């Protein structure tokens, strides 16, 4: 891990009030995750205990300690998407060997669940590499994933 980079990120955001969350987001954006080695550096820079930083980082679902796959798929399992068959998408991914909460061994995919993407009238919804998708069915989901891999 590039310690100097982490310290630079802290320096950029340190002036904000309660800067830890923006810093964690920035570290993850730069490194793909918040690696364990970053915790003591952040603690040192922000005059917090390592336990404080670790506690904050692990509280939020967004922050990961290992990088995600090249394509991240987040399937919405909120009530509105349940009502239009979100479970079928989960089952479909499962049949393709993709399990919720896991990254494939070859590092190509990470599949996660999410509760609501704010696309409740056009469900089932998912977010693929940060892009919102709606009115999904099994075929369209597969097509979107194929396209993401091709890129």
């Amino acid at each position, binding site marked *: 891990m590039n310690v100097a980079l982490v310290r630079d990120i802290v320096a950029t955001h340190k002036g904000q009030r309660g800067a830890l*969350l923006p810093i964690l987001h920035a570290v993850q954006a730069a490194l793909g995750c918040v690696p364990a080695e970053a915790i003591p550096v952040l603690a040192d820079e922000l005059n917090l205990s390592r336990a404080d930083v670790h*506690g904050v980082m692990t509280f939020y679902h967004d922050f990961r300690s290992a990088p995600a796959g090249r394509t991240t798929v987040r399937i919405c399992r909120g009530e509105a998407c349940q009502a239009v068959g979100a479970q079928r998408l989960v089952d479909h991914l499962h049949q393709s060997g993709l399990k919720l909460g896991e990254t494939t061994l070859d590092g190509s995919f990470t599949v996660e669940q999410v509760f609501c993407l704010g696309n409740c009238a056009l469900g089932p919804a998912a*977010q693929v590499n940060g892009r919102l998708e709606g009115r999904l069915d099994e075929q369209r989901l597969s097509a979107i994933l194929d396209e993401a891999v091709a890129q």
Partner: protein
Amino acid sequence: MNTPVTVFVPRDSAARSVGADDVADALLRAAKRVGRPINLVRNGSRGMLWLEPLVEVATAEGRVGYGPVAASDVDDLVTGGLLDGEELPQRLGVVDDLPWLASQNRVTFTRIGITDPLSPDDYLRHGGMVGLVRALQNSPAEVVAEVTQSGLRGRGGAGFPAGIKWKTVLDCVDDLKFVCCNADEGDSGTFADRMLMEGDPYLLIEGMAIAAYAVGATEGYIYIRSEYPDAVQTMRTAIEIAYKRGWLGDSVFGSSLDFDLHVRVGGGAYICGEETSMLESLEGKRGMVRAKPPIPAIHGLFGKPTVVNNVLTLATVPTVMANGAEAYQQLGVERSRGTQVFQLGGNIKNGGIVETAFGITLGELVDGYGGGTRSGRPVRAVQVGGPLGAYLPRAQFDLPMDYEAFAAADAMVGHGGIVVFDETVDMASQARFAMEFCAAESCGKCTPCRVGAVRGVEVIDRITAGEHRDENLALLEDLCDVMTEGSLCAMGGLTPLPVRSAITHFPDDFSVKTPSAKEPITTEGKP
């Protein structure tokens, strides 16, 4: 023939999720092919989401809509005369005259879908900043009095009168006060905050500036959930432009108001939609709920007096200030004044935004505007107010949308989100999910919520497995009492609402069944 035709394709992420970007690209190509210059505006969404992507063309008779349009339809549509508003299969007519839209009373959503969200000139042309300018001509106390008089209540769910909250902050003496906008719209079935931030960001900025002036705050934060990257981007860009225009920063509109506004992005924790948890998160801490009192109005962000309001509450303030409290007060029923932005989602034919005065019935929304289910099967249950709201059967469709009437029926209007389920829904699974969701998203501070939710899942499993059914149903009732009475915040306190309503209205679903093969909600590695 060579004056450019103005064509609108929404930039709202819901519209983009079903191909609006591709449609916009295809339109540019097709227009070039036929040699017609077009002026493409990426507007917000009109809120008729089942028609997205909805393309609008400015014509002499008004803005004519076509929808839903697929990118592959565009060539034929343009050849067929879309750019002249010609009659074509997807033609809907003049959008403003469509009964679905024309029958609404858009007070907060008045501009969304009409303007280019990021154009400050468009904003001014359509009545923007009138409220702020008028507020700045009054004293802070007069602004607070006007908001109080309007009857505006918090739109985040709890429905607390906005003016009373503001008065508390105004009365606090401190050199530093904050205005925080809760844009952590985590409830499934709600998307109005997102659409507002993507579709009319200056309105929220204006509302926050009015709040800051009214209470004497100098700094504001908009806490947006990370699941809304487009809203984050739009708000950030709008804030940047607003600074350049003198709508933010030192001496706003040349007045005594100095106001700095920042966007903060959440971390994917549902609980941060609870106001005290959000404040903790803004302070850079774990989003653990605080005990109240002290209330945030007095002891809020970094211990300072803080206004915490939902997006729609703050975005309604400019209209109240522009048109006066009286105009707003005249809408609505009983103690629910003004309008509510209802959001129709789930298994619904015509889903989207219905903004109308309080008092409309649940049935008018679901069967009337919504047109029933998308699947075509009968509606069996409707969940109102998000994951912590009650499930209601058709028998309750005559309930008026009014905070007190819903509370009397053991339900809540909440944020105005309405999720529809058809007859295939299993209500015991939905009750179980409510507990499962609470277990996954509890901040862990208080025992009734943290442990109660886990026990709740287990008890429901035993009930549906037929183990001592009656005893376990009694136990579940008891557990719901403990959670309702003993939880620190609404997360644990309201989770019993969907559970109990499912048992009350759909008791047959809680009989013995074979265990489902559903993949469990993963809570691994999380608190």
